[in-house]
């Protein structure tokens, strides 16, 4: 069964460094999302992406964040200058049919 994959599974970085989280959505999906979950808290929406542009973003998704789909398969989330509070689990999701988002296994980001 096709699934969303994410790499790396765990990323440790120093405050102020740039990180790129990678996602490979399910191949025929056209809608993509990033969510984040700070430890012990709810999963929060960051951004949605369709047709090579952002369709919606949350207040969390400020100028430090960017997304792109560089090669038609990968979907990346970049954090330009990481802060301690960016430490969280980041989930990618993709969607083909209405109301069915499939989530990846997540990338745990630890900022020290």
């Amino acid at each position, binding site marked *: 069964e096709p699934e969303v994959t994410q790499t790396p599974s765990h990323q440790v970085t120093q405050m102020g460094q740039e990180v790129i989280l990678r996602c490979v959505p399910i191949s025929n999906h056209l*809608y993509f*999302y990033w*969510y984040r979950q700070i430890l012990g*808290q*709810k*999963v*929060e*929406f960051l951004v*949605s992406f*369709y047709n090579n542009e952002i*369709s*919606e973003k*949350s207040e969390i998704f400020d100028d430090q964040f960017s997304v792109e789909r560089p090669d038609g398969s990968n979907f990346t989330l970049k954090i330009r200058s990481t802060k301690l509070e960016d430490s969280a*689990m980041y*989930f990618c*999701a993709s*969607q083909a*049919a*209405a*109301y*069915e*988002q*499939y*989530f*990846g*296994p*997540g990338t*745990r980001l630890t900022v020290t």
Partner: protein
Amino acid sequence: AQTVTQSQPEMSVQEAETVTLSCTYDTSENNYYLFWYKQPPSRQMILVIRQEAYKQQNATENRFSVNFQKAAKSFSLKISDSQLGDTAMYFCAFMSGGNSGGYQKVTFGIGTKLQVIP
């Protein structure tokens, strides 16, 4: 803005017994979708069940069923014949029907931690 509330931080159930997890939500919309997601210790988010707001019939998926009360804005999950593999965090979630025809962000509750006891 929509909100999703789960008032049970933790629950436990004996193996083979039935347990019900509660969820309420707030929205002014009439067209929306509700979900229960399971997050085991591996932290993968797995869709358990989905309910369309326009459907009166409660959704069922094998041992999982929901009690959807639209007027009360309540959406509880019942797990029958609980198994050890059901141990996980369970998140109630909402998606607006909106203008995008089902391609919207998902809003999650804070979760209920379910422990199935052998």
